[in-house]
């Protein structure tokens, strides 16, 4: 298998990360924000994996497994919070949480 061109993959990762970040900033729906964060995490993971293959080291893939685990944990906590927020405000609008002053 021909080696993957590292520059192309890094550009892809950067594009994915930027898309994710833009999603975080622009979406109001909290579920979509969480999904955008997942995209950012995976973009970072992709960069790790390609870097690991470039240097012939397993560390990149080890790091990706960490990120997967962390993303799973994050999603479970995040979804629990989303549920609580929905019970409270009857909406999934992230800005609605701004009403919790103090």
């Amino acid at each position, binding site marked *: 298998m021909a080696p993957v061109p590292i520059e192309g993959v890094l550009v892809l990762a950067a594009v994915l990360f930027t898309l994710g970040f833009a999603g975080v*900033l622009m979406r109001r729906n909290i579920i979509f*924000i969480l999904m955008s964060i997942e995209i950012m995490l995976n973009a970072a993971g992709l960069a790790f994996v390609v870097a690991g293959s470039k240097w012939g080291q397993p560390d990149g893939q080890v790091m990706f497994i960490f990120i997967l685990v962390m993303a799973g944990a994050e999603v479970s906590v995040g979804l629990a919070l989303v549920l609580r927020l929905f019970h409270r405000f009857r909406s999934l609008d*992230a800005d609605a*949480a701004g009403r919790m*002053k103090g």
Partner: protein
Amino acid sequence: MTDLLWLIPFMPIAGFTVLVLAGSRLPRSVTGTIGTGTVGLSAVVSMLLAAGFGVKGDGYVVTQTLWQWLSVGDFSPRFSLYLDALSLVMVLVITCVGFLIHLYSIGFMKNEEGYSRFFAYMNLFVGSMLVLVLADNLVSLYLGWEGVGLCSYLLIGFWYRDSANGYAARKAFVITRVGDTALAVGLFLLFTNLGTLQIQELMQRAQAEWPAGSKIAVIAAALLLAGAIGKSAQLPLQTWLPDAMAGPTPVSALIHAATMVTAGVYLIARTHVLFTLAPPVQSAIAIIGAATLLLAGLSAFVQRDIKRVLAYSTISQIGYMFLALGVGAWSAALFHFMTHAFFKALLFLGAGAVILAMDHEHDIFKMGGLRSRMPVTFWTFLIGVASLSALPFVTSGFYSKDLILKLAWSSERGSVWLWAAGVAGAFITSLYAFRLLFVVFFGDRLTRAKSDPGISMTAPLVVLAALSVAAGLAALPEPASGRQAIQQFLSGVLPAAHIRDERTPELFLLLIASCASIGGMLAAWLLYVLFPRYAEGLVQTRAGRSVHRLLFTGWGFDRIYDRLFAGPFLWLTRINRDDFIDLVYEGAAWYSGVFHHLLGLTQTGKVRWYAFGIGLGAIITIGIAVFL
């Protein structure tokens, strides 16, 4: 026996410690006994040591090193005591007169609050003064010097509930501080140039290294002189002393007779080598002394307050001592210090008895005819006044003043003018002294005075009166050298004055000085007993009134200082009421408040806004890391 030297300053300080710690719980009799007894024991010890001097001769010196005080680099003063003929005379006078004043205070203060506080301060006062005169180096001398200043503050403001007394105490403290600062600078100068502060070593090195009249010697001597002027209330720092009368009368006696004000005289006598190396400064001492004795004498003449008369008289008499120091008549200054200590303590204690008998009335024109009511006080006061006026042959004041006047004429540094100032001063002294006596004790004014106080107060008066007369014995010529006994005694420490011209018309000078003092007495008799209306009329004229006001306010020095120093200072404080340095701190508080509000605006509670902040921060940080 010489090992007992440390006991002299230790006893009063121990008394102070006991009275401060336990004084309020002790009965009054015990307090008085401790206060008086410790000073009395010091007097006994100093007399024992004086006996040693009688045996061993004039150049005899007792030293005792107590401990190493501190050690910093080259500077390692020991705490040691040094007793020679000069400090012995001082110590004897301080302890004996101090003892009598303490004894008198037992009666005087018996109905006052703060009885133990009073004796504690008095003991500390005597203790500090003893440290001052027994000091072996200038650092311990300075310790005693400041201790005396502190105690004068505490004692002048003893009746602290009256704010005027507090003002007088602060005034004394602040004005003497001006001189003390100069003295401290002088000490630094001496140490940096000569590398020691041990007095004897210092004098030797100064003599060896500094040529006479060199600039450094003049500056050092001038700084020491400034310190002496502040403490001894000479021109132009004399204004604190008349106000210092706010304290209880025994305090005035102690400050003016035995201790504080003579510290300056002692300092100059102790470091006389330095002053002989600085002829301009020595001339300045003589001129300051002559001017002070005249100005203060004239002020004393018009005062109404019995204690203020004596206060101005003290300034004037110390002027005589400065005159003597200035013309190089060191031992004459010490002799006058001794006689003055006796008769001025006597006069103050007599005045205290009068004030007590008049229920704390100070105005002499509300007194009169006390002669028959208070015979003991009258006769002793008469002796004091006669001694102050230097009435010929029977009083000790005559001998000491005569010695000063003679040397002011004949010494190398003396001149006719200094002598003339001294003689004019003698006339004025006699005039105001007898004015005081005549107004208070003569006349037939009806006053509601009580009679003589009890034995504990009259006994010191009688003893001091006897001393005022007997101290004249120190002027008896020694058969061996033909010099006066006191000069002979001090000759090991203080050199004799250089006589300019051997052909001094001594008899003529004696006659003039005697005429001056008797003339003053007669003038007072004419003005205040025979024709009292004439003096009153003189004051009523326009010129008389303005002159009277000028003299009464002590030549307006207070007003000049108010205008010159207090006024501008108060003006500065007024315009700077909201301290401008505070603006810096208030500005810092204001800016942090503003930033707080600005940052508070960013806390919107919107998750996406925060995420934007994090992203922006990350981009900026990475940008800095990459591009810089």
